[in-house]
């Protein structure tokens, strides 16, 4: 038995790889699947071009994995393509290095006439000097996570959300079991190897292997705007920096990001100053951005491996697989850190190789050619013979009822509550239908958690129509629905 710690892209990827080789696995996730960085990312399936200059290894990995993910998870990828856009103020010298980098990494780049780009993307301002097309895409992270989890379980593995790893036991210096803390209380599980895929928490988890590793944690804030403001991914053709990527995601657009060092993985939340900075940066490329309706702000934490800081302070997006046994820690303990969502499969494969090497198991299946079993995906249930719960995202009662798990888990599985009204109208409806399964009291607790989560995203973006929406949300919650109890 191998225990994988972390229900994000990396952990689920590792478990998916291992079950294909016939290795029994259990994934433990302290919260809901995807509650870490994998559920709080930008949604970009990188072509690698973003890293062509600073991080050639990551650029090459991204491009290879980009092509693989299109094959093994077509339902979770939208092949929008992307632009790299240079404005008059951006250095030409960087552009040349970038072109060379893309060429070296094998990333196909196509010059796009500025007039054509402006026609396709009217949101772009007048200062555009040069545009290149790259094979970026949009990644439906939640849908892929849920597909992997489903696949793991279908192959006999186990996925335990709301279960925290609290201790690793060893016998003669080798991993012999883990101690878990979950809904059913504490329990122990015997195992012969543990994989730490805990993302930003990986440093903390590694202390249980008697061989701590150092991570550089940095928080990145993203803004969600109503509507698809652009038809494809837009990157700024300048050294990677704040506010340089805009991704169209279903009916919304996500703009980001920032990079603020944080001390620990729990430090989540977008700040007003980061949001203001993003709005200003956005204005340089999208003059109309002030008029765009912002829906919410959120932040994710980059778990970058401290092995690779360059002289300029750039922390590589490369990943590392650490075999703690070889570094004097417990044998059978492994950590996988760094990387990108886009490269999760490769990270998982190399981690699985290390684990299998330790267990003496030969690789028999290749995840690069194995389709991930994806659900039809959010929004595809329009024709259900049940009423619509969420009008913004067109989620029917039946589509919601098909999902297991808490309201928050259903939100990520169906996308309900993610549209312009941010769950104002559908939150209570969804809670009522949930109450039929878990009872009124439990459903109301889930509703409170759902409301708190949505409200958190509003805090730093309380202006314009979003402030008006928040006022309406309060009126409906407190006056129409009588949700007053939690008021101070």
């Amino acid at each position, binding site marked *: 038995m191998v225990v994988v710690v972390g229900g994000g892209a990396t952990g689920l990827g590792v478990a998916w790889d291992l079950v294909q080789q016939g290795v029994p696995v259990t994934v433990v996730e302290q919260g809901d699947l995807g509650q870490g960085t994998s559920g709080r990312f930008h949604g970009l399936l990188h072509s690698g071009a973003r890293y062509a200059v600073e991080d050639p290894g990551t650029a090459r990995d991204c491009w290879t994995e980009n092509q693989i993910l299109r094959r093994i998870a077509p339902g979770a990828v939208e092949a929008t393509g992307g632009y790299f856009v240079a404005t008059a103020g951006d250095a030409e010298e960087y552009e040349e290095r970038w072109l060379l980098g893309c060429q070296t990494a094998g990333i196909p780049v196509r010059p796009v006439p500025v007039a054509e780009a402006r026609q396709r993307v009217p949101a772009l301002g007048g200062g555009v000097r040069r545009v290149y097309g790259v094979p970026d895409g949009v990644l439906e992270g939640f849908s892929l996570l849920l597909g992997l989890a489903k696949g793991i379980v279908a192959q006999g593995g186990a996925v335990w959300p709301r279960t925290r790893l609290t201790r690793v036991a060893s016998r003669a210096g080798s991993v012999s079991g883990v101690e878990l803390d979950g809904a059913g209380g504490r329990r122990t599980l015997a195992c012969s190897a543990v994989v730490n895929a805990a993302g930003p928490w990986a440093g903390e988890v590694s202390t249980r292997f008697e061989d701590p590793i150092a991570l550089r944690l940095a928080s990145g804030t993203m803004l969600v705007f109503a509507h698809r403001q652009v038809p494809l991914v837009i990157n700024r053709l300048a050294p990677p920096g704040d506010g340089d990527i805009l991704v169209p995601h279903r009916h919304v657009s996500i703009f980001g990001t920032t990079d603020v060092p944080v001390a620990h993985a729990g430090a989540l939340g977008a700040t007003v100053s980061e949001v203001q900075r993003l709005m200003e940066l956005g204005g340089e490329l999208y003059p109309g951005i*002030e008029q765009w309706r912002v829906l919410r702000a959120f932040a994710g934490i980059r778990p970058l491996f401290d092995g690779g800081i360059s002289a300029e302070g750039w922390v590589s997006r490369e990943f590392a697989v650490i075999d703690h046994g070889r570094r004097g820690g417990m044998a059978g303990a492994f950590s996988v850190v760094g990387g990108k969502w886009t490269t999760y499969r490769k990270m998982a494969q190399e981690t699985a190789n290390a684990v299998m090497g330790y267990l003496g198991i030969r690789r028999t299946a290749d995840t690069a050619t194995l389709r991930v079993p994806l659900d039809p995906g959010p929004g595809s249930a329009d024709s259900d013979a049940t009423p*619509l719960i969420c009008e913004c995202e067109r989620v029917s009662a039946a589509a919601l009822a098909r999902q297991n798990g808490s309201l928050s888990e259903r939100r990520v599985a169906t996308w309900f509550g993610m549209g312009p009204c941010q769950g104002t109208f559908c939150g209570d409806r969804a809670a009522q*239908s949930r109450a039929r399964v878990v009872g009124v009291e439990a459903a109301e607790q889930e509703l409170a958690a759902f409301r708190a989560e949505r409200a958190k995203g509003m805090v730093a973006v309380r202006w*314009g129509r979003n402030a008006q929406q928040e006022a309406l949300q309060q009126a*409906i919650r*407190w*006056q129409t629905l009588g949700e007053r109890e939690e008021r101070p």
Partner: protein
Amino acid sequence: MTPPVLVIGRGPAGMLAASLFCLAGVAVDLVADGAGTLPLWSGAWHFRSYDGARLLDDPWQWWADAEGHPYAAWSSQQWREGWQTLSQVWRLAGIPTHPLPSRNWWTVSAAGTPDRAFLVPAWQYAVPAAEPVCLVGFEGLADSLADVQAVRYSRRCNLRAEVLALPSPPGWDGTWSTVRWASYLESEPGGAWLLEELTRRLAGVSDELPLLFPQVMGIRRVADILGAITRSTGRRAYEVPAPPPALGGIRIQEQWTRWLLRNGARFRSGHVDGITEDGVTWHHTQSLNGAAVVNATGGVLGGGLAIRRDGSLWETVAARRLGGSSALGQDGRVVTAGRQLPGCDPDRHGDGGAVNLASAVEAVRGTLQRLGWQPARSAGEGGVGIVESH
């Protein structure tokens, strides 16, 4: 010719102020850039319904003890006259209500929880004391999970709540909105279907319980539909509010608008963006003359206050930044009503109706006084009185 009084905003506060001007024989223009909040709620007016999380029984007592509220000084007499004025306006406009109560009515919220309200439209469930009820649910209506709402009701009130589940009607599909439901139920086949289903399924429900339906019982013919149910089942039948779009408020707005138009009020659509010596500017600086201005623009929710990205607060009708207190109305020429009032927090207090009422009455009375106008039609004792003209 004297220009009309300009009422900015056609939410409940603006509609009431305009009505009072009409009744006083004063020409009024209602200028607004949107429909206001009436279509978003049931139209049951709160006097004072909440005290923190607690539901409040006696709003009179609360107001008698009130301190620090903008209308704390209003006497019981003033409140009584105010509420009578409003219910008379509604009666004239053809909006039927339950009688004005001596305590808050018990009502049921859209979530199935008990609520309190003061002036309640006649189609909505309102009783002097909480009692066992029967909640009726339509299978295909998203907001009508009567079984869950019944659990909520009995948990909160410690009273029995039975459930009557009705199937979806023929021809229904998942895209039916509340308005579509309502127009089906007030069609002839819809009415027949409803009565048939009710008679078939009522046997399981205890005799004495009132039937509480979600607020989709017709758009204009709600009284007929509820009446027909009572005639054919022998039970009391009412609606309880639903989340927006709320048919209760939509019905009220429709009737009220029609009455205002009949009484000479003019409805004008546009965004007001400046206050001038002679009235206001709108549509980017075209001027609109007015003898006085009532600013019933609804605060952040209504659009009267705008929060800019830098966090500053702006009064939209004056396109002016608010520092501390309102930039408007220093000379009394512009008076404020409704949710636009500083310090108004109806969501927390359940006093939105009372604030709309008192502020509209004061705005109109103050304006008439300042202009030295005597109401053309006779006024009752104190305040802006109304004598029914029919």
